[in-house]
């Protein structure tokens, strides 16, 4: 029997549903809502999921759950995984370019350039992971018989509001530094142009990035940002895309002493070497003191034995009775 060429009826199109990315899965919003996304010229592009406050809370739970595993890996291994993400982005280059061209109203060639810059930026931050400790850490020369060193550690769960004007490069420029520092993230995509974020989520899901390390929400900024900024289990907030909500969000963030990065007046996402400027706000410095000596700690020893005999004259003035 000869093969029949399927020429007559047109094939039923496989249409893509733009969903959220939560805990490694792609659910619709629990609210069941979606909203229309248009190109820079006002043409309808797609219906994106319109996340709710409950989706925000679910995303924070997923990010918190993923934090011990992600921060517990070696920095080198995180770097390898992030490089793998760049490989996956490279494979979706055409899709990214199409979405960037539609969202920003630029030519195909210009969109390709933006995609290249975004992938390069991702690789740049992938490389930072195992160098942070050396650049931001220190061995501290204290006046006493102690080994004392400071190391950067992840702040925890970081809420990221992606910038509105640069839906792919800006997105990468705010997200990659957060997770290369071993944080986990809840990302609110650009409300106007969320499609590159959804495609990035699909690249993340097909890399070796554990589920929950990045959670992507699409929807109304005014609905999603306030509960994220006020959430007690979020440790830090990047307000790059906050727009007019920034003051209100900072006020909410202050309630639980979140670390906050304000949007710059002229954030330039195209700088080739941004350094650690966007990493440093999302690390905490841990300082460990360890006595140096040849004694052996025994039950009954005064525990501060190592610390008290050497203090130089004038110490009290410096330390105010031993406390700052």
């Amino acid at each position, binding site marked *: 029997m000869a093969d029949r060429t399927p020429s007559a009826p047109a094939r039923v199109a496989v249409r893509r549903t733009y969903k959220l990315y939560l805990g490694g899965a792609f659910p619709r919003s629990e609210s069941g809502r979606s909203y229309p996304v248009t190109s820079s010229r006002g043409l309808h592009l797609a219906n994106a999921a319109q996340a709710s406050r409950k989706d925000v809370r679910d995303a924070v739970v997923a990010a918190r759950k993923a934090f011990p595993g992600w921060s517990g890996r070696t920095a080198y291994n995180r770097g390898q995984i992030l490089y793998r993400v760049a490989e996956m982005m490279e494979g979706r280059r055409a899709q990214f370019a199409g979405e960037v061209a539609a969202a920003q109203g630029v030519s195909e060639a210009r969109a390709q350039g933006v995609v290249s810059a975004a992938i390069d930026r991702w690789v740049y931050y992938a490389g930072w992971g195992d160098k942070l400790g050396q650049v931001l850490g*220190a061995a*501290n*020369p*204290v*006046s*006493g018989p*102690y080994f*004392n060193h*400071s190391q950067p*550690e992840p*702040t*925890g769960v970081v809420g990221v509001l992606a910038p509105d004007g640069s839906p792919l490069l800006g997105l990468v420029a705010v997200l990659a530094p957060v997770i290369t520092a071993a944080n986990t993230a809840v990302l609110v995509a650009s409300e106007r142009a969320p499609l590159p974020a959804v495609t990035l989520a699909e690249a993340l899901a097909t890399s070796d990035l554990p589920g929950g390390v990045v959670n992507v929400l699409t929807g109304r900024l005014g609905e999603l940002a306030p509960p994220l900024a006020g959430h*007690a289990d979020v*440790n830090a907030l990047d307000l790059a895309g906050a727009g007019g909500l920034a003051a209100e969000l900072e006020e909410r963030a202050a309630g*639980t*002493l979140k*670390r906050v990065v304000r949007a710059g007046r002229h954030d330039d996402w195209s700088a080739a070497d941004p350094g650690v400027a966007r990493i440093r706000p999302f690390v*905490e*410095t*841990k*300082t*460990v*003191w*360890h*006595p140096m000596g040849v004694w*052996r*700690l025994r039950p009954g020893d005064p*525990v*501060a034995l*190592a*610390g008290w005999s050497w203090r130089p004259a004038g110490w009290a003035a*410096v*330390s105010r009775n*031993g*406390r*700052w």
Partner: protein
Amino acid sequence: MTGTACSYEQNPAERGYWFPPTVFTGVTQAHRIAREEIFGPVLSVLTFRTPEEAVAKANNTPYGLSAGVWTEKGSRMLWTASRLRAGVVWSNTFDVFDPASPFGGYKESGYGREGGRHGLEAYLG
């Protein structure tokens, strides 16, 4: 405070506005005296059976200014110190400070560091 024993020498009301050194034993994580800092000469004592349990209990708080570890095993100290979510970890010592050593907390214990290179950074442009 079911199951919690409180021991101190005498009734504080008898001798001015001073509170005698006090040790609470049998404290659980649910107790307010374990969840919030008491700014007084008071110690809330919890117990643990494994190092993992000790770390989980120590980190189960919205604060993280300092922590202390006592052990005679260096590898255990480093293991524990790397898991404690606190700005300063004192090992086999406590409450030691130096202008060259950064001091400051994680989470809701505050912003930034004082001391050391990290403390100086806030003064640079």
